């Protein structure tokens, strides 16, 4: 059984992080104090949304080309804003996966080149672990906790035992939650990224106007499914096309309501599993529920999960909205946490397009490659 978290100790660390796994190019510097608390010294993110806009989604080759054009400049800016040089660093980290391999390689090669030439420890960070540990940097929350990680590429429920120690209890069997928002936005002709666009439209819409399914509700295992919901939105929209502004607002509100109910149901099931697995240790650890990833920025979802958590005796924590999306501060932090535990990588570390946090988790029934 995993032990209650031992906070990594050691001298103050200055950690450079690099993130290039999807469509944000990012570099950041964080400070990790010996007591295990962290502070962001700089956090530079360049989004590529405009580069991908005409294509209706992220084009891997366009993303990789954009990363290599600007990453070294972003690193310079991050160092300058932090008021340090490469010589002041304790370690350098890059997201090595999961993600788009062309982009991952750009970040990885840059981090390795700096590590080699400055003789610095190098850490190949799992992007999902970085999301999972962000609340440690921003709010000082230490494992163990229950985590809902929801982004454009992933939707998982995880038990975070400690750094490098995760049990996956739920995952999506098809689309990720962020992907469902993006696809819904696209079919309604709303701009990308779809999450904020759908959320804004939903503010003024009627969530009860369209009957939409609540996918997976009541299932024993806390898995997710959003592909059918997206198709249902398309069908309702097609039936009433051409769409008025009100139709779009109502469709967005109805879609978001279905998402919220489905996610609430899945999280409720996860609470039960967490309580059962942690049992008497809950007295020591408390019941902490963390949401992270780009979708954690959705206010409606955040609010409803907050209520749900409270009703079950859990405290909800989420990173500030600016750190829900992809960023390099979380990579720098996860790298520093791993380094403090001696979990360095060697300079032959590969990019890993698929890299589950829990290597032992069985594939969810009916799931494709994303699970």
């Amino acid at each position, binding site marked *: 059984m995993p032990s209650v978290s031992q906070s990594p100790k050691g001298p103050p660390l200055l950690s450079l992080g690099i993130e290039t796994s999807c469509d944000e190019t990012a570099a950041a510097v964080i400070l990790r104090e010996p007591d295990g608390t962290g502070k962001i010294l700089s956090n530079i993110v360049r989004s590529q949304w405009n580069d991908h806009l*005409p*294509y*209706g*989604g992220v*084009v891997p*080759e*366009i993303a*990789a*080309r954009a990363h*290599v*054009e600007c*990453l*070294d400049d972003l*690193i*310079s800016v991050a160092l300058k804003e932090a008021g340090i040089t*490469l010589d002041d660093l304790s370690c350098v980290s890059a997201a090595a996966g999961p993600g788009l*391999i*062309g982009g991952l*390689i*750009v*970040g*990885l*090669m*840059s*981090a*390795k*080149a*700096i590590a*080699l*030439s*400055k003789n610095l420890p190098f850490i190949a960070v799992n992007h999902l672990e970085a999301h999972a540990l962000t609340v440690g940097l921003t709010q000082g929350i230490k494992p163990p906790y229950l985590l809902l990680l929801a982004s454009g590429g992933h939707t998982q429920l995880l038990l975070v035992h400690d750094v490098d120690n995760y049990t996956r209890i739920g995952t999506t069997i098809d689309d990720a939650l962020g992907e469902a928002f993006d696809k819904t936005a*696209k*079919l*309604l*002709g709303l701009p990308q990224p779809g999450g904020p666009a759908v959320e804004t439209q939903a503010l003024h819409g009627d969530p009860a106007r369209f009957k939409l399914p609540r996918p997976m509700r009541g299932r024993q295992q806390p898995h997710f499914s959003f592909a059918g919901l997206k198709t249902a939105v*398309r069908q309702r*929209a*097609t039936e009433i*096309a*051409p*769409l*008025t502004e009100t139709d*779009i607002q109502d469709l967005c509100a109805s879609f978001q309501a279905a998402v919220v109910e489905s996610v609430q149901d899945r999280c409720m099931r996860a609470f039960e599993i967490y309580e059962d697995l942690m049992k008497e240790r809950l007295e020591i650890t408390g019941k902490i529920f963390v949401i992270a990833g780009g979708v954690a920025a959705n206010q409606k979802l955040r609010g409803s999960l907050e209520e749900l958590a409270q009703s079950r005796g859990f405290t909800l924590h989420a990173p500030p909205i600016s750190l829900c999306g992809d960023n390099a501060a979380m990579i720098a932090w996860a790298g520093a946490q791993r380094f403090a535990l001696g979990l360095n990588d*060697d*300079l*032959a*570390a*590969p*990019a890993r397009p698929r890299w589950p946090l829990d290597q032992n988790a069985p594939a969810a029934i009916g799931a494709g490659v994303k699970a």
Partner: protein
Amino acid sequence: MRLLVFDTSFSACSVAVISTSETTSCRSVPSALGLQGESHSGSVLASSYEPMETGQAIRLIPMIEEVMSRASVSFGDLDGLATSPGPGTFTGVRIAVATARALALSTRLPVFEFSSLALLAAKAQQTLGPTGADHVLAATMDARRDAIYIQLFENAKNPPLTKPQLLTPTRAIGLVSSPTIVVGTGAAAFQKAADTRHRPVRMQQKDLQPDATYATGIHMEAVNSLRPLYLRPPDAKPQTGKSIPRVSQ
């Protein structure tokens, strides 16, 4: 002048530390790879070459470490970094460019670029011997989808006759009029196209890959910001007609 040279443009990963005698530098218009630049001749202090289809992102940095160690040089002993930003596979050229740019950021060493096909030509000339004064050397690499990367040389020590180009084999034939020796993984397609047009082309070393070991004599150019030479746009088409129609306003 001591240079760390590496290449990951095609199906190999290679690294060398070379010592060159500085020669005349003419940096007029830095537009075409190798058309102007510095010509070096010198010696190889240490080098390493590994053929591989993939895995350059894994091997490159450890190979740099090994080769520098064998050459007994540290980054402080170097006068520059040199690599090929292309032509090559998209991922391959980005591995080299990302590495060179980050090393430059870290070490503040100047960066020199050279054409991967110039490296190929230098290797061919060193291993084939003189090609004869009247021959042109066509350095080619397979670019898939019925295309090859091609660059023409008189002699690797002189400036190249053309820039690197991406062409169909048939159009590539149009570049040459004199007797030609063609080398590299595009050679077979080039030779086939030449045969149908009865052009005097002789194929040699059709499996040749660029190798940093042969960088001592090639033309390089100093660059402020190294950028990949893709020669081909990303394979992506703008999306249309996916959204549900709206009431027109």
